[in-house]
């Protein structure tokens, strides 16, 4: 795959669609939660208002250069992850900038934003930020492991690391999805997915009542706005990877919207049903329940 200039407007178009979809999706899921609790919930455009409000705040403070750059890293990580992965299978238009690298690039680029954000939050000098990061990093070491194993298993299965090739191998019917051809790997990966979505039972990182929302505790105004933007993009970008690897990808935008929504709902369902784990509990949980699945999937692949 080669670079062409036309890819840039195409990539921006993808970005535009995903940002809006992510904003609406976030509010929509909040609304579902509200309806389950017999509330009306937020307006569907609530996230836009919040975003504009935060960009529109007139003052802000900065704790230093790294603090300033933290959200930039964060959003770059989100946008980069989105653009390094082809969004729509078979569409030259929405293959984005995936010519730059394969699955491994996407997997490792996830950490770009996390790391930058952690550094920025660290410079704020707030102990709660550091505590949150300590928890988050501790948890991620265990939570990422099943995903890494699952990805390895899938790569072994299809003998490729190219996302496009993996998606194309799953075409031709629902039963060709990795979900059915390699269910252990998908199970391991989906458990890992729960750990990466910052929802219960794995949300001790943010813990609003205990360490007021953890790492971003000092962020506000336009910093926060950038992070909100990322909050719209990043989960979707991550789910796109899952969708491409395990659920047959998406050949059109409607399918894309549906699949991303459904995958997202997995973590929502689990989140409303379970209380919060402490960090060491979640580490043990991943090592005991998710990792063996991943190992099995590798051995059987």
């Amino acid at each position, binding site marked *: 795959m080669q670079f062409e200039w036309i890819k840039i407007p195409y990539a921006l178009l993808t970005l535009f669609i995903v940002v809006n979809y992510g904003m609406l999706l976030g509010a929509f899921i*909040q609304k579902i939660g509200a309806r389950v609790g*017999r509330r009306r919930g937020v*307006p569907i455009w609530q996230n*836009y208002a*919040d975003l504009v*409000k935060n960009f*529109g705040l007139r003052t802000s*403070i900065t704790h230093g250069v790294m603090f300033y750059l933290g959200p930039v890293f964060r959003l770059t990580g989100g946008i980069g992850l989105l653009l390094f992965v082809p969004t729509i299978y078979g569409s030259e238009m929405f293959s984005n900038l995936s010519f730059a690298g394969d699955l491994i690039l996407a997997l490792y680029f996830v950490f770009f934003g996390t790391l930058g954000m952690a550094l920025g939050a660290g410079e704020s000098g707030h102990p709660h930020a550091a505590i949150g990061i300590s928890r988050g990093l501790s948890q991620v070491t265990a939570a990422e492991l099943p995903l890494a194993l699952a990805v390895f298993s899938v790569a072994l299965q299809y003998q490729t690391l190219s996302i496009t090739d993996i998606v194309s191998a799953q075409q031709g019917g629902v039963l060709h999805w990795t979900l059915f051809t390699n269910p252990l790997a998908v199970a391991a990966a989906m458990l890992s997915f729960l750990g990466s979505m910052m929802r219960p039972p794995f949300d001790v990182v943010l813990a609003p009542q205990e360490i007021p929302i953890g790492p971003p505790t000092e962020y506000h105004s336009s910093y926060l706005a950038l992070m909100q933007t990322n909050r719209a993009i990043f989960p979707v970008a991550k789910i796109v990877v899952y969708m491409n690897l395990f659920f047959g990808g998406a050949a059109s935008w409607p399918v894309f919207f549906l699949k991303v929504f459904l995958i997202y709902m997995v973590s929502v369902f689990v989140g409303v049903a379970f209380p919060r784990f402490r960090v060491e509990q979640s580490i043990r949980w991943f090592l005991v329940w998710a990792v063996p699945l991943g190992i099995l999937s590798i051995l059987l692949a």
Partner: protein
Amino acid sequence: MKPELMKRMVKGPDGVEFEVEPMRDYYCDAPPTVQHGAYIKIVEDFFNWARSQSLWILGFGTGCGAIEMRPLMTPRFDAYRYGIQWRPTPRQANLLVISGYLSVKTLKRAIRAYEQMQNPKYVVGLGSCTINGGMYWDSYNTIKCLDQYLPVDLYITGCMPRPEALLAGFEDLKKLIRAGQAEGANQYAERFDWYKANQKQVIHDWDMPDYNW
């Protein structure tokens, strides 16, 4: 002044002694400034609409009135549908609700929290106590008149005001915001000396910078 805030001599790793003055070295001493809105009115109006639709309340209860704010989140009152939600840190909140009587000790914390919020920011006084001291009108330790110390945009009367009253009050606040009349932060900056004088008159052990960024 607490000992940890006093000037002291410290010896660096190279053996050279120097002075550390916590109030100067630990805290930014810049005063607040009046912040103008966007130059184009329609943009500012748009921002004001967004601000009114996105009221983030600091989760900070000062008195018994805080008990009336919790029901707002419940299905019965569901304040979320009005774009109202709670944030655990003043950095991300733009609405400070003084929920009931405010002792002098709590006033200091309220001032800190208020100043750590970002412009534009709004203060709502909840209940009689914030208006004229209420049943604590002759207490030796409770302020009687909130707007002497913080720029209040709106009072909600009652002892206690019910959640319905709070919702009505927030709707009124939204109208003020949309009308561009909720400029408490700028008033605070404009009349900074007056506010500080009032604050320092009741807070005798002032141990923080004049403005807590």
